[in-house]
């Protein structure tokens, strides 16, 4: 397995280089840093700025300059002379907090609902969860987020005089850092991120579980007199989880993308807000490492998914 992992990592190098070129071309062709929204800028000011910020250099020269620094861990400075890494690091931390909470909710609720639906197939719970899943799948996150704000903040306050939830931000004005305050601020955005995931995973888990529940080895286990609870938890669940776990590892990359909208709605200063602001400001220097980190995380998580497949299913050998 170690050899497999090393081989996969080595294969990642050309993938990363090709991805960096594609990312650079895409970002540079869609951002226009020299034409900032600057109502007071004269043509001569813009030309001076372009020269001072090396924006007139050829694309190849800009790419080589950027990638050589990036590959050495130097993320550079923005066009506004602000170091890129500290802000990006802070945004990653916030996104990881939100992503982790959303992920726990997604997996926790999604899998639980899926398992119960499968065990109690065609029951009222199964019918209800199926209906709610389709609702969750079809509701856009931006709409769901705003509904959460209206119901759990504004209406809740009207009904009960106060509410524990917030429309925006990661902390109260008087506090900072982790803790209850951060957690309660992240609850609504985390549910907004999770709602589609819960729907997907519950359906996925239900289907996977039904496959396993009807398999021969479970019938054998029951015939041996093993309790139903043990049959489900020890035998059925473990096998049903294999495809779900692999999918969930790959899905973490998609979660980062999905956070863009939610972070914007709830004003969470994570990678989504970072990306949107950088794009609006024409700060390609900020967007490039952002995109490369997403690329790297997807590559890495794909590898993790493959490795976990081997761990969970002894029939698979990663040689």
């Amino acid at each position, binding site marked *: 397995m170690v050899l497999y992992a090393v081989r996969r990592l080595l294969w990642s190098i050309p993938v990363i280089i090709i991805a960096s070129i594609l990312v650079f071309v895409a970002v540079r062709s*869609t*951002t*226009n840093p*020299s*034409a*900032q*929204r*600057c*109502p*007071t*800028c*004269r*043509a*001569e*000011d*813009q*030309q*001076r*700025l*372009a020269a*001072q*910020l090396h924006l*007139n250099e050829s694309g190849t020269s800009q790419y080589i300059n950027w990638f050589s620094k990036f590959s050495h861990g130097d993320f550079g400075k*923005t*066009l*506004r*002379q*602000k170091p890129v890494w500290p*802000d990006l690091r*802070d*945004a990653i931390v916030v996104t990881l907090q939100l992503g982790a909470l959303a992920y726990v909710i997604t997996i926790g609720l999604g899998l639980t609902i899926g398992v119960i639906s499968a065990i109690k197939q065609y029951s009222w719970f199964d019918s209800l969860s199926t209906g709610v899943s389709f609702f969750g799948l079809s509701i856009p996150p931006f709409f769901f987020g*705003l509904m959460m*704000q*209206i119901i759990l*903040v*504004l209406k809740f*306050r009207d009904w009960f005089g106060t*509410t524990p939830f*917030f*429309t*925006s*931000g*990661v*902390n109260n*004005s008087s506090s*900072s850092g982790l803790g209850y305050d951060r957690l309660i601020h992240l609850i609504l955005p985390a549910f907004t991120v999770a709602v589609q995931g819960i729907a997907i995973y519950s359906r996925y888990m239900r289907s996977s579980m039904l496959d396993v529940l009807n398999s021969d080895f479970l019938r054998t286990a029951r015939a041996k007199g093993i309790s139903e609870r043990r049959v489900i938890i020890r035998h059925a669940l473990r096998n049903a989880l294999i495809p779900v776990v692999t999918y969930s590892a790959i899905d973490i990359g998609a979660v980062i993308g999905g956070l863009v909208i939610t972070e*914007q*709605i*709830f*004003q969470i*200063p994570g990678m989504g*807000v970072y990306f949107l*602001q950088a*794009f*609006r*400001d*024409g*700060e390609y220097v900020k967007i490039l490492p952002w995109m490369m980190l997403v690329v790297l995380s997807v590559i890495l998580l794909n590898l993790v998914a493959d490795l976990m497949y081997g761990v969970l299913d002894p029939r698979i050998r990663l040689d």
Partner: protein
Amino acid sequence: MRRQRRGVQLLCLLFTFVLFAAACSSDKKSTGAASSSSGPAQKKGGTLILGAEQWPDCLNPITQCANSSWMHWAVAGHVMPRLMELDEKGNFVPSPVLAGDPKLSGEGTSSGTGKFTIVYDIDPKAVWDDGSPITADDLIFSLDAYLKTTGAVSTAGYDKIEKIDSSNGGKTATFTFSVPYADWQDLFGGNSGYFYKKAAFAGPDTKSDMIDSYTFSGGPFKLDSFDATQATFSPNPKYWDTDRTPFVDKVIFKPITDSDTELNAVKAGEVFGIYPQASPGLKDKTAQPDLTLAFAPGVSYEAIYMLENSLQNPDTVFNDKTVREAMMFAVDRQAILDQIIHPDFPDVELLQCGVWVPTVGQWCDQTLWADVKFDPAKVKSLLEGDGWAKGSDGIYAKAGKRLSFKWTVNAGNARREAIQALIIPKLKDLGIEAVPDNTDADTLFQTRLPQRQLEMGTYINTASPDPSVTTILSGKQIPTPENSFSGQNSSGWNNQQATDLMDQSDKTPDPAKRLDLIHQIGKLLRSDAVLLPMYQLPNVTIVRNDKVEGPVTLYTPAAYSVFGNIYDWSLK
């Protein structure tokens, strides 16, 4: 009876004395008779929490950080000192830094050529937050900083200053310009200029300074912290102008960049005031008793621009002046106002003066577009008189060219898309084909507009207190591939006479002479039918009336945003 009258006289005298004493009191904050509109004395202390619709990435007012209006509105404007400032009506007035009006002298003051000098007297009481005096040396340093900072966003005007002399123990600064400069009030002040404390910097290249903090203050507040989640301020204890001593102990600005969330946050009481953009349905969405909603004509105006020599279509029909003139009478501005704008903002009027607005300065000539009304007969006579004839498809054509063009707005902007939906069928009835070619806002404003990749566009521009339109309309400021798309004249209007007038106006400090030049430029703009002005967009303020009091909506129309006077806001 007589004794009674004397008693009344004594009471009147006493009352007059009390009134006189109160009026002469130098510290409005200590008497409690603040400029509050609410009557009773305003409470001191507490934390004022406000929402910001956009959030600056960095804070250096010299570099590209200054491109963010919210950097000025939410941060720099409360901390940095200015020389001349704008009052709530958009008039230039001396800031508290100055002991009086600056004195202009030299031949250039009235003639447009020759020597041009300004003398500023700095208030002897004016100090930085550490108590050190504000002097002419700070202005000399600031000039150096504007000119020598790598990535300085604009050196306009600063590059015309030959020297600044210090006298009177540093409390008098004499500016000598190489040429007359009409927009002198925007230097170190005005819309987005400030000056800086010399002792706080290692050298004049400030590119690495003021990124996310200010280590000094010359305004009513000090910046205590700034990050991606909030900016916090406390009163500057050394601020000398007692009229601007803040009531609150702390101010917090929080970014809330999603417009729906911003409304929800103020409705939930998480923030006490916001300054959102005017949008359809705002009145209904904020209809609750603890919210005060205020509108005022803003500094932004919306117009339809017809691009000459468009780079999207170099053979555009808008190269033909007659077509542009016909469009003036083919677009039903009144219908746009009645059906799209008035349901939410009934006080908005048609803008008749092009790129100036009636509420900012004296520059707007409301007669310029006054003759422009929806007039199908005039459209017909203009086009047919120029050789255009309707084809079998009902669209005019001339020499094989159909009167068809693409009309671009930023996709998702409900107001502009509604305008297109209203106007395009009407144009078709007149034999003019407009094809929507909408694109997302970032692509439109970052790429297509700066590179003139559209034929006709609808977007807003901002009227500055200084009437100069050189950057947006001069023939020298047209972005082209040859100049790497530098310049802001996206309309492509290239009228040499107008360009010369703009240059002359920029060198004419005398307001009366300048007014004449500006009106001449306006007439050329109208006669060349470069754009069709529609209306001023209203500024909007929403405040929690159960949380804050004072003159909280006074600055709604102001260039500094409604938050320009938060030193006068207090908590209930």
